[in-house]
């Protein structure tokens, strides 16, 4: 078939030029390329920098014994294996690397096991049994997920601290008149327990979701064939929730590797180091090369975990359980145990969820730490003036005002809010753009590299990520001035660490906007900007807003990521808590903690309310 009567009309310009112009005017390509540049800057450069720094000399290496003894000449930037040797092959290795590694693994495995046990038991009770008041329990059980992890550690300290290490006695010693043994007060056991009380929420949420999606007819079919309850559990239920369990495991494990606040509060007083606190201490002691090697180890561990996750459950990540209409979920009758189990669950919530917050709040009202009697009550740490004195005439908190009247705290609070606001808005915008470029470019190399690059910060533990940014932005790079000590650096690092979350939510939101909705706009000639503002953005708005609030809360409570980067002028609430607690001013630390907890809780409530009202608006016909 020829093209008779349909000749090619003359078109101006060369085909090649037209091709380029068209490629460069495709919105997903343009946005994608810009984002790629940004991601290279955010992710690849820090990764190169961390390896480079650990393999080269820096000025501070002059005082290292290995350098002094051998009379090595330190030229900053010159290649050296001195850090490799110090960390992996010297008499320091045990103390600096092996023991922290062992401690990290003990803690991470312990907390993963304990939190999965708690989380999935609760999930099963709430989703699959006739336990009373399930909604309330589910809401309370997810509180630890909302608030930061270290308040529980602070509460633990106020209950179990002993006078052996100096300071005032805790609640336990006050009541029983004997100091609790060291292994209860500090070290691995309390770290594992307090972290599990935070991280169990991951397992609770993912396993509840998986259990809720199992049609109980799948189990009933097996029961009808004569399988025992236990066999049904083992052969049907467990395999179906396995992907959820695995992802809870990975999530908890990789978070646990990098956790900083709790091991710092409960480990450092007895010189119990994990990799994260060791990195912190190395940086503080001006040993960046050694610190970065440890950070690389942490990154490798989390990468391996995530890789194994992909290997093990990659093919069957989630089961699509095919069910027709009339999805049924039959509940297990707990019979006579119903109320006993209920009482136990309530007790768990009271002691481990409400309890820590209650203790922290109480502590902020104690004039002298460790005296739990009523006459010791004071409002000073909230609203007291400068230079107030206590009952015994002592200067309270070294003369500092209560947190609501303390200009330093207000400055930190303003920094926190400013940081959280900037980061959350930028992260949400970045997320929508990433989602657009990834989803619309699906199948292209650009889309794939954006997807995996934006996921990369996930494997960087917070403290390691902070350390990397510290090193990278300490000096001028190209047009970017040295950023150490600036607010901009905090924004950059928080934004970069939020990338995995941003791109996931952005992608998810974009996947919900059927491509055809945008194409219907293309057909009538609406340009990219118009399509974005009139079609895509309105349809992703609720996800966008929820993303902003969630990022706001997470940034508000972030400690490990920025603890190395703040300076007196950029300090934020969480780092103030860290300093106060380190310095023994528990009332101040706890008061600010409760403030951050309140912001987190209120923010989450707003998200839930907002999403509910949005759903009922009938969007998504």
């Amino acid at each position, binding site marked *: 078939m020829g093209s008779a009567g*349909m000749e090619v009309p003359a078109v101006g310009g060369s085909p090649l030029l037209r091709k380029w112009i068209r490629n460069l005017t495709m919105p997903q390509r343009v946005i994608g390329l810009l984002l790629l540049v940004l991601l290279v800057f955010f992710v690849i450069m820090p990764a190169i920098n961390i390896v480079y720094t650990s393999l080269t000399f820096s000025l501070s290496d002059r005082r290292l014994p290995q350098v002094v003894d051998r009379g090595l000449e330190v030229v900053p930037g010159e290649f050296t294996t001195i850090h490799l040797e110090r960390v992996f092959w010297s008499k320091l290795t045990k103390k600096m690397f092996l023991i922290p590694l062992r401690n990290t693994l003990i803690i991470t495995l312990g907390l993963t096991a304990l939190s999965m046990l708690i989380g999935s038991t609760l999930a099963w009770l709430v989703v699959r049994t006739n336990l009373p008041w399930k909604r309330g329990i589910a809401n309370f059980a997810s509180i630890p997920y909302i608030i930061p992890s270290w308040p529980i550690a602070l509460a633990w300290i106020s209950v179990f601290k002993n006078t052996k290490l100096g300071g005032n006695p805790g609640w336990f010693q006050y009541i029983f008149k004997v100091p609790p043994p060291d292994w209860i007060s500090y070290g691995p056991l309390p770290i594992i327990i307090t972290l599990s009380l935070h991280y169990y929420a991951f397992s609770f949420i993912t396993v509840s979701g998986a259990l809720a999606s199992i049609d109980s007819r799948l189990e009933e079919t097996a029961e009808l064939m004569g399988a025992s309850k236990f066999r049904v559990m083992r052969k049907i239920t467990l395999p179906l929730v396995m992907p959820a369990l695995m992802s809870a495991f990975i999530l908890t494990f990789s978070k646990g590797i990098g956790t900083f606040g709790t091991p710092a509060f409960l480990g450092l007083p007895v010189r119990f180091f994990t990799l994260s606190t060791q990195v912190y201490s190395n940086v503080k002691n001006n040993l960046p090369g050694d610190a970065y090697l440890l950070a690389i180890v942490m990154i490798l561990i989390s990468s391996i975990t995530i890789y194994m996750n992909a290997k093990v459950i990659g093919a069957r990540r989630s089961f699509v359980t095919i069910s027709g209409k009339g999805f049924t979920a039959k509940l297990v009758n707990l019979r006579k145990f119903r109320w006993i189990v209920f009482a136990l669950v309530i007790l768990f919530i009271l002691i481990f969820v409400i309890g820590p917050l209650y203790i922290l709040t109480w502590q902020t009202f104690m004039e002298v730490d460790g005296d739990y009697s009523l006459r010791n009550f004071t409002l000073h740490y909230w609203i007291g003036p400068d230079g107030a004195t206590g009952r015994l005439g002592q200067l309270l908190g070294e003369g500092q005002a209560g947190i609501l009247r303390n200009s330093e705290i207000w400055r930190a609070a303003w920094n926190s809010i400013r940081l959280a606001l900037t980061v959350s808005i930028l992260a949400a915008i970045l997320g929508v753009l990433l989602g657009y470029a990834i989803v619309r470019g699906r199948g292209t190399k650009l889309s794939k590299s954006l997807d995996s690059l934006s996921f990369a910060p996930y494997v960087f533990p917070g403290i390691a990520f902070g350390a990397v940014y510290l090193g990278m932005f300490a000096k001028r790079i190209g047009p970017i001035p040295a950023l150490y000590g600036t607010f901009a650096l905090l924004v950059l690092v928080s934004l970069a660490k939020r990338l995995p979350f941003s791109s996931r939510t952005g992608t998810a939101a974009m996947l919900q906007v059927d491509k*055809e909705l945008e194409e219907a706009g293309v057909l*009538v000639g609406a340009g990219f900007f118009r399509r974005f503002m009139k079609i895509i953005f309105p349809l992703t708005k609720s996800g966008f807003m929820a993303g902003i609030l969630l990022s706001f809360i997470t940034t508000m409570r972030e400690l490990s990521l920025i603890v190395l980067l703040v300076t007196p002028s950029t300090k934020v609430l969480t780092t103030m808590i860290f300093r106060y607690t380190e310095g023994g001013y528990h009332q101040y630390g706890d008061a600010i903690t409760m403030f951050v907890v309140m912001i987190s809780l209120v923010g989450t409530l707003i998200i839930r309310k907002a999403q509910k009202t949005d759903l009922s608006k*009938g969007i998504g016909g």
Partner: protein
Amino acid sequence: MDNNKLKIRLDKLRKEFGDVVAVNDINLDIYEGDFLTLLGPSGCGKTTTLRAISGLEEASGGKIFIDNHLVFSKKDEVFVAPSKRNLGLIFQSYALWPHMTVYENIAFGLKVKKLPSGEVAKKVKAILEDVQLDEYGERYPSELSGGQQQRVAIARMLVNQPQIFLMDEPLSNLDAQLRMEMRSELKQLHTRTKATTIYVTHDQEEAMTLSTRICVMNEGIIRQVGTPEEIYSRPADIFVASFISNPKMNFFIGKVENIKDKTFIEAGGFSIEIPSGIVGARKELRLAVRPEDFYVSDKGVPYTVQTRLPTGRSQIVMVGNQSGASITLLFNTEVNIQADDIIHLSIKQEKYHLFDNDSGKRLN
């Protein structure tokens, strides 16, 4: 057909997704006023072809002409934007913007074209009356029934006055009864507007009832283009024969027997005399007979009834014989048959199709 004006021409159109060839160098002419259906199983390339014509998908090779204009050519890097191709598209999902009212949905394209708002209002109102939705302007799509949503989609397309209508399985989201109703609405729309329409479906009945011409596709290749009658009565190959048949076409391996100067096909116990000359030197070929093209006669071949599926208006009967052959039959209900009955079957005059064993191409 050739008297009509050529509206769209696809010239060696090709589309690859990675290693997968979705559309494999197809040539197709579509004439002014045609209602052409691209018909085929899922993954045959029909939707990709439609999207390439619309410009929403950029093809990997070949040329597309619309109204004598080159709108796409890989070789010359010509690509005319979808909105400049003078066409409208009804999506499978309708793609009504859920956050806009019916009115806003229809007015959107006019606003993009910067029409004065008075004129926009007038046009939208007129089109809403056309599709009998004048009461529904302020509703959101989710507050409408499936059929009403479809009419909004039609109105949104019509208001921009495109010369070509593209429809991508627009009825697949509706329940059976509504589908019938909307089918006749679409047919009326075509009769009324005479607009060249390209319609994509995998439903052969839809294709048969709506189209002026059908283009059957499979694995990215056009297998046959013709009127519904042509496609039904003279399927070009085994694929078309089996795809356009409900209940399924009966296929037999036929042995060619030459007795004196006559040629016979022996298959499933039947013996059919065929015009000599069409089989050539073949010893074996495929014989296909539609379920409705058998009749019961005393001289027929005996078969045992296995199952009988009455549909009310007719009955589908499955029969088999000892040598393992089985046949699906479609009878009206007057034929009195029970399971395990033995019936004698014959093939209606000239109602058989012969295909080459290897190429699958039609022989008779």
